[in-house]
């Protein structure tokens, strides 16, 4: 790295590298890639602020932030996975399982191997949820890398398994419920509720958490060796291998990160609903994928950004909120949401072809 750059050839040849212009068309191109989702978001916000007097009110904006937070956190994990060339269908199930386990332990006393455990305080509950998330991620990673099973199939399997375990843990009941509540403590800790439903200076805590996740994740992707390895593994596995990158370890770490974020999302959701249940967040795995793809990520890996994912999650969130405000029936909402996802991605592909090659 620190060696003298001896001139390659004596005679002057070819054109000397020109001074690079300040303005670089590449920067513009890079921006254009994220523009599809941003444009959709701006159009949506513009339309809704005209169509509904309730849309641009502080209360509703806080509401959107709270609703979007869970999708954003899950989608952040999903983005890491998709960038590395994988896909994680188990994020919502992991969220449900971690939150269920934590909620049961925080609200009741459980006998494990003859030892009475719980009810545990909020901090311990958080740590337990995170550990469960990491564990599921580790399992996903090991199945995929060591078991050599395609990501899609492996996480489809863990999705079902984790929902099953969550049902076993909660007995199929919401937590806390009047059936599982003991005289010790039958309610969720207030810190958890604050996390999901509270606010600081009028800003929803859940939204701040989601924003924090995006910022930290963005830094990881841009500034750490791990983040770079993710892009390399997703962008060209063989090149990553030849360059000495530990592909298995990178993938396992990515799935663990996704599991960790899923657990965080599960806790935020539990706080917001003031209740956990085994099947919570169903369908969120597909929303997280949709948010990532709307945000401009390539499903085959190696291309995408968390900023795009945040915008993608907002598109989905604002759309849902707006359709509610406009009194569109829940059935039509689904139809419209599906069409919007397809529309944004089609637009994105078209624009990418024009700006890309």
């Amino acid at each position, binding site marked *: 790295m620190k060696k003298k750059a001896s001139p390659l050839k004596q005679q002057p*040849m070819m054109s000397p590298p020109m001074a*690079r212009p300040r303005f*670089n068309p590449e920067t513009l191109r890079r921006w254009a890639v994220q523009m599809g989702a941003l444009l959709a978001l701006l159009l949506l916000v513009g339309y809704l602020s005209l169509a509904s007097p309730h849309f641009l009110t502080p209360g509703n904006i806080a509401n959107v932030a709270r609703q979007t937070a869970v999708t954003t956190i899950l989608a952040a994990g999903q983005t890491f996975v998709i960038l590395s060339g994988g896909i994680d269908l188990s994020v919502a199930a992991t969220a449900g399982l971690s939150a269920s386990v934590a909620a049961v332990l925080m609200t009741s006393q459980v006998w494990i191997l003859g030892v009475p455990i719980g009810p545990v305080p909020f901090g311990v509950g958080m740590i337990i949820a995170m550990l469960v998330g990491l564990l599921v991620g580790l399992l996903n990673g090991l199945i995929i890398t060591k078991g050599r099973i395609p990501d899609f199939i492996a996480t489809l399997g863990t999705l079902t398994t984790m929902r099953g375990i969550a049902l076993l843990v909660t007995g199929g009941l919401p937590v806390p419920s009047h059936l599982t509540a003991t005289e010790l403590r039958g309610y969720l800790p207030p810190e958890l509720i604050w996390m999901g439903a509270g606010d600081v200076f009028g800003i929803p805590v859940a939204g701040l958490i989601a924003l924090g996740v995006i910022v930290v994740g963005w830094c990881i992707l841009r500034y*750490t060796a791990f983040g770079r390895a993710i892009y390399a593994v997703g962008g060209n596995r*063989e090149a*990553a291998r*030849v360059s000495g*990158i530990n592909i298995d370890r*990178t993938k396992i770490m990515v799935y663990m990160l996704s599991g960790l974020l899923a657990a965080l999302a599960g806790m935020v959701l539990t706080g917001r609903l003031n209740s956990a249940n085994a099947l919570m967040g169903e369908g969120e795995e597909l929303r997280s994928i949709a948010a990532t793809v709307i945000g401009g990520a390539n499903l085959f890996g190696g291309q995408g950004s968390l900023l795009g994912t945040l915008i993608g999650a907002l598109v989905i969130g604002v759309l849902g909120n707006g359709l509610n405000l406009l009194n569109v029936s829940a059935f039509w909402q689904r139809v419209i949401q599906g069409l919007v996802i397809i529309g944004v991605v089609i637009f994105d592909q078209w624009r990418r072809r024009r700006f890309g090659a």
Partner: protein
Amino acid sequence: MAEERRLLLRMEQIDKRFPGVHALDHVDFDLYEGEIHVLLGENGAGKSTLMKILSGAISRDSGRIWIGGREGLVEVSDLTPERTRALGIGMVYQELSLVPYLSVAENIFLGGLPRTRWGAVDWAQTYHRAWQRLQDLGVSIDPRAQVRELSVAEQQLTEIARVLESHPRILVLDEPTSALSDTERTRLFELIRRLRDRGVGIIYISHRLAEIPLIGDRVTVLRDGKRIATLPVTEVDEDRLIQMVVGRKLTEQYPWRNNVRGEALLRVENLSLPGVLRNVSFTLHEGEIVGVFGLMGAGQNELARALCGLEPRYTGRIFIANQLIHLRHPWDAIRQGVGLLPRDRRDGLVPLLPIPPNITLGQLCLGSPFRILNLRQEIQIANTYVERLHIHPPILNRPVFYLSGGNQQKVVLARWLCSNVRLLVLDDPTRGIDVGAKAEVFTLMEELSQRGVGILFVSSEMEELLAMANRILVLRQGQISAEYQRGEATEEDLLRSASYEKSNGGSR
């Protein structure tokens, strides 16, 4: 010699710009019936762009194209791949476009399998006709074999057979011999001549200057998107061509100098890989360039891969600087200062990442995954090497996907130059790159060996090995069959040592 022949193709003032590059600057090109027209130029000179415009894969900014038909020349305005095929233009690209899980016969007739009267696929006919087509090419490939089981050379021949199936009147061959053995190449040349005699116009893209007098009638040289000259092959010699291609005289294409041989750097003892390598032993010293030659499949690529930790199931012992090393993963090799230039450029780069991260990719595995990257330093390193290796265009935040082949190769080389590599394994480093870039690669090799880096130089080009290596090891069926000191061997010697026993022309 092309007096009374009809024009098959005329391209006039073709112009194309990509962001930041003037890929084609008002280029003229034409092709007569029964002619082999060689298109020559460095990587990034615009050859592929010109052919892609002809194939309809990309559109031109300006310029006109006429294509000859039964009614004479007809101007065509917008070309699409379908239109091109209908006009009788067949393209054989460097990147193969076969379906790996289908049989050879299915690939040859893809989209138009022979049918029985009832509309079902006539398999007997399919295989029979495929066999005949391959026979015409002079190769014995089983038409029932799955394409993915074939060697690269066999796949290339299958691809050619497929394109010929549509009986093109204009045939474009983009570096068709890069993967072929000498025998296969000779057969291919015979076939090309036969096609020419039947009146097919052939555009032949190649980097091998030595091939041009063997096969070409006329040659057009492109440089930096401009047409430099179009000449009958009989009127040019190799030196003149090189000069036109690179725009300067290459006084020293092979800059080999005698260098001081240092300590033993790499010692390989009884290296074996089931079915590929048998008891390979040799020593490589600091500052030494050891060439490895072998016919296709003789084990030279696996030898290179094993030394870089890509063949973890080897047996035998590998010592680096007198230390026994177990190379189970590429990072084991990289931590020992071993760098690999993979055989396939596409295996070396992350196409969507720009130049700087691609250059520093080999350093990611050194240290904790949680450490912070020094992006500023990375850009500096990239700037240094972009300048030193003349990587063009020097745009640091554009994905390397947009670079030409030779420039991509330079990026992979820069990766090992910027780390303190002790042993560099080059697996066919000049495959598919042009003379100018080749000379640059050799200069770098020379420079590195002067600095004491040991180089294992696997190549299919005997001329390069004879010119650049201190010693040459010849592999035959996974064993070292001969070792020559510099100056001891000729191309004939190498070939004889590589193919002494029951060789069958390089096919598997």
